[in-house]
């Protein structure tokens, strides 16, 4: 039988299989196609230096993050999912993990209010008023969290709020692993 008659159904079969595979991959509990994977994984964390939120004395820069495993969280008071994930972050801090915050394009008063109401899990917080530091980290959505190991390499990026399931399955295990 001539190739030209078999080719259409053949190509279609391959395509249908691809679609099927993809649907399976993005199905319930599967990958989120809107998420863009980070290119900074396994690379040194970016160079940056952030002042403290007005009214505080800390601030955050690159050297603060070297020496132990940590979670860096990019948040803002005007971001509703940040509020949703915050209790999870408080929990992590209570368990002894090191959390650092980058406050993105926020008014000092609002940021302080957010921390006062929901708690402050962060060892240090840097205020990124113009968003440049976040760009160095490849941030595009809020909130985003990064897990750093003790040598100062980024090991994992979580896009969106950290839900309890993510805490259980990914965040806590990874933090424990890199803390050893």
């Amino acid at each position: 039988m001539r190739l030209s008659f078999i080719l259409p159904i053949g190509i279609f079969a391959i395509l249908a299989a691809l679609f099927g595979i993809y649907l399976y991959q993005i199905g319930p509990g599967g990958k989120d196609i809107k998420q863009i994977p980070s290119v900074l994984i396994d690379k040194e964390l970016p160079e940056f230096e952030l002042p403290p939120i007005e009214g505080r004395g800390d601030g955050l820069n690159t050297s603060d993050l070297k020496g132990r495993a940590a979670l860096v969280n990019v948040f803002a008071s005007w971001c509703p999912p940040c509020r949703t994930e915050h209790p999870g972050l408080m929990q992590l801090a209570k368990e002894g993990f090191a959390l650092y915050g980058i406050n993105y394009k926020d008014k000092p008063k609002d940021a302080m209010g957010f921390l006062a109401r929901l708690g402050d899990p962060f060892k240090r917080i840097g205020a990124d008023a113009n968003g440049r530091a976040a760009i160095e980290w490849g941030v595009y959505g809020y909130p985003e969290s990064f897990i750093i190991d003790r040598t100062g390499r980024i090991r994992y990026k979580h896009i969106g709020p950290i839900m309890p399931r993510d805490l259980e399955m990914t965040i806590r295990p990874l933090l424990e692993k890199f803390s050893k």
Partner: protein
Amino acid sequence: MRARARLILLLLAVTVAAPAMAVEPHEILNDPALEARARDISKILRCLVCQNQSIDDSNAGLARDLRVIVRERLTAGDSDDAVIAFVTSRYGDFVLLKPPFKSTTYLLWGGPGIILLIGLVAVVVTFRRRAAQPSDAAPLTDDEMQRLEKLTDGGRDP
């Protein structure tokens, strides 16, 4: 004036049409050549928080920040490639609206040419094959010929 920019514009804009709608007056650089480069680069950088827009088109915050960064780096003397590399080293290749030419995209960029080639070959082969074999359909009877004529207007021109 901005001749080369216009040419590039035509190529891009035949399908994407009108340039920047989101550049703010205070972002525009004073040097028109640098500004033109900034616009060209912005047009091929994707706005990651939008649907299918370039940072030149979008008025999202991230787009604005990246536009400003592009202009800053151009003013600092970076080449076009260096500026693009700056962005892709932080956001990955996905930020490029024009897919890069690397191993994962050989099939994408080579595809059109291959498809055209296959099409041409198919046409030529079919031509040759049919020229070699005369049609073996049974000739129509007079009655069938008449009916066919009526149905197709005697094959008169269109």
